[in-house]
């Protein structure tokens, strides 16, 4: 006899908790073949606002953690993802209608990418920073520092998990905190990722995941004065130029949309895009 399943409620992931949207709204998430999968929370501008508040609260601790510590935390996430492979594969097969093997390949790649990024946490400074040979009795050092809060539009097409991971991992490596708007049509992996984060050592607020309509939510993030950077990697289908214009008001650092297989491909440049270079001069003297 077939056991009656217990369907999961998919809520937002904000500040380490799973609240429903303050608007109370949900939207239907359908499988690739059109069957009802879940009612996902339909995030509102106030949810976005709350997410930014949570991200700001978490920034001090996350950016202040040692790189080694951040690396370990990120690596642990990979461990937990690995442990939950089956759940993610299952969700992907249902949402995206891929084969088991394709879904497995996606999950594997996502985990491996996460590991790759984790390993950068205590190294990117050495590659991007350097001493500067200035004239005069000064010790001069340039070091990249986290930008702050990064608002991200996750890739909206196929490979929702891989796209999400590729988009948020690099921002986290450098100590930024993140507010990500998930894949609208295939948000389930995003919330499951939230569950992974919630059970890992990632402090609440470091990653905040909003499901719903990017077209509705992202403009509020783009104009938000406390968001420091905007990654429009998955925003090709939005009025993204308007978003970039809106972001210009507060001089946000903006990355443009990418499309195709290559979108958000792993690169050191993605980590460095969310850093600010700080250069410090110190006088040095014997006398």
């Amino acid at each position, binding site marked *: 006899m077939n056991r009656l399943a217990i369907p999961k409620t998919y809520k937002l992931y904000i500040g380490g908790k799973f609240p429903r949207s303050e608007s109370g709204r949900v939207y239907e998430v359908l499988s690739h073949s059109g069957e009802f999968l879940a009612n996902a929370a339909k995030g509102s501008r106030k949810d976005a606002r709350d997410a930014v508040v949570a991200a700001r609260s978490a920034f001090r601790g996350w950016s202040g953690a040692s790189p080694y510590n951040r690396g370990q935390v990120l690596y642990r996430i990979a461990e937990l993802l690995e442990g939950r492979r089956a759940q993610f594969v299952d969700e992907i097969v249902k949402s995206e209608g891929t084969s088991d093997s394709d879904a497995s390949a996606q999950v594997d790649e996502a985990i491996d990418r996460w590991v*790759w990024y984790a390993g950068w946490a205590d190294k990117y400074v050495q590659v991007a920073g350097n001493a*500067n040979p200035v004239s005069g009795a*000064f010790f001069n050092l340039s070091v990249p520092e986290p930008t702050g809060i990064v608002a991200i539009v996750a890739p909206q097409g196929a490979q929702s998990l891989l796209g999400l991971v590729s988009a948020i991992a690099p921002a986290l490596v450098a100590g930024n905190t993140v507010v990500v708007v998930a894949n609208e049509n295939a948000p389930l992996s995003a919330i499951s990722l939230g569950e992974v984060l919630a059970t890992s050592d990632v402090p609440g607020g470091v990653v905040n995941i909003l499901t719903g309509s990017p077209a509705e939510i992202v403009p509020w993030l783009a104009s938000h004065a406390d968001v420091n950077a905007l990654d429009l990697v998955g925003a090709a289908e939005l009025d993204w*130029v308007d978003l970039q214009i809106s972001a210009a*008001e507060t*001089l946000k*650092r903006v990355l443009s949309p990418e499309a195709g297989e*290559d979108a958000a491909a792993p*690169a050191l440049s993605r980590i460095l*895009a969310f850093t600010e270079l700080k250069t410090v001069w110190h006088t040095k003297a014997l006398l």
Partner: protein
Amino acid sequence: MKFLDYAPAPESRALLNLKDDYGLFINGDFTAGRGTPFATINPATEQHLAMIATANEADVDAAVSAARHAYDGVWSRLSGSDRGKYLFRIARLVQERARELAVAETLDNGKPIKETRDADIPLVAAWFFYYAGWADKLDHAGVGPNPASLGVAAQVIPWNFPLMMLAWKIAPALAAGNTVVLKPAETTSLTAMLFAEILQQADLPAGVVNIITGDGMTGQALVNHPGVNKVAFTGSTAVGRAIARSVAGTDKKVSLELGGKGANIVFDDAPIDQAVDGIVRGIFFNQGHVCCAGSRLLVQESIHDDVIERLKRRMQTLRLGDPLDKNTDIGAINSAEQLARIRELSDLGQQEGAERWSVDCVIPDNGFWFAPTIFTNVATSHRIAREEIFGPVLSVLTFRTPAEAIAKANNTPYGLSAGIWSDKGSRILAVADKLRAGVIWANTFNQFDPSSPFGGFKESGYGREGGRHGLAAYLKPALRSGSRSIVAAPENTAAPVSKKTVSAKKAAK
């Protein structure tokens, strides 16, 4: 006699051969501008210096075309080492003509000859010399192997360090293989014109550098021109915003170096006399027309009175007057407009309730002048604590603990510079860690070097000038790949990491 009334020690104008009027420098030659020419004056005397051309849209187009032509036909085909050789030539020529350039800069800008001679012009030469050596070493810029140049760079610079800002823009752009159209500031185009002569002397291929003078419209037309690949702007945050908006949706890479309200933090264990010198240097160097000026003094409350007393005494030795006199410390304000703004904000400071004190100087009859001024009892909510005045006006605030100093220093949308004065090494390092500023000086201030990256956090802009990172601003990775082995690392700009097709909806914008 009073020894301290030093006898006049004027630098000679004789070595300067100014023309009556200057044209636009396009494609290696000077050509008349099609807009209405305008006068440039000496802000210390209000005397006429020369007529400067205005580039209209057609001129801007011609300049961009010349740059594109030169890029496609000549510059992008040259080896890095040849590009380097041109830059070395330029550096040497600047050194040869250093005195002439210093005098011209002082006349046109109003800043003292002591500064143009000892700071501005040497840095110009140094910048070209530094980037000359990078031209054939781009593999090491941090953008991956065989990085590509961007194409034509549109560069708009301000009036506060005219030739130095020109060098900061042109040197890395050329080293990286780009060609340039540069627009100097309206009130300070003279040294750019002399620089164009130097380019001719260096035999730089025509069109590699084009210099078009004009007003705000010229700059706007240049930045908005569809034929440019990179926009580099130094100036006000307001214009920076406008530029960021205007490049949205295009492929243009952008770097912005904007305003600031730098905090100069003096702890109770600071080397006090050097800290006072540092405060003076921080806000009165270049008449305070410095984006990274230490325009807020955050002094530990327990030593406030002593520091202010010493500061006032030290300020009394500042000499305001003829910028061409070698003993002048404080020159003229660059324009009537800027003077009006400084006055307005200073009056505001008084209205807000801060206490105003200025050096007792003899103000010349002609010209634009403002006596070095400090405001004490400034609170964090005062506008003079938040808005950039861009003049010789210091706002003094206090703090009690290092944490409070950091919080106050960071409590601004700007994030360009900061200073830390303390005898305690561990504190300096920890405070430097926490300050959200792109350039931090410990026990010194306003130091610049071509090898040291300069730029801001937050609304002070993005992108860096100087150093390896300043070079990377003019490069892009050779190819983009999904492979993890590619470690392409462009600097932090608003521009796309890679460009894919934009949907038709966007194309309509």
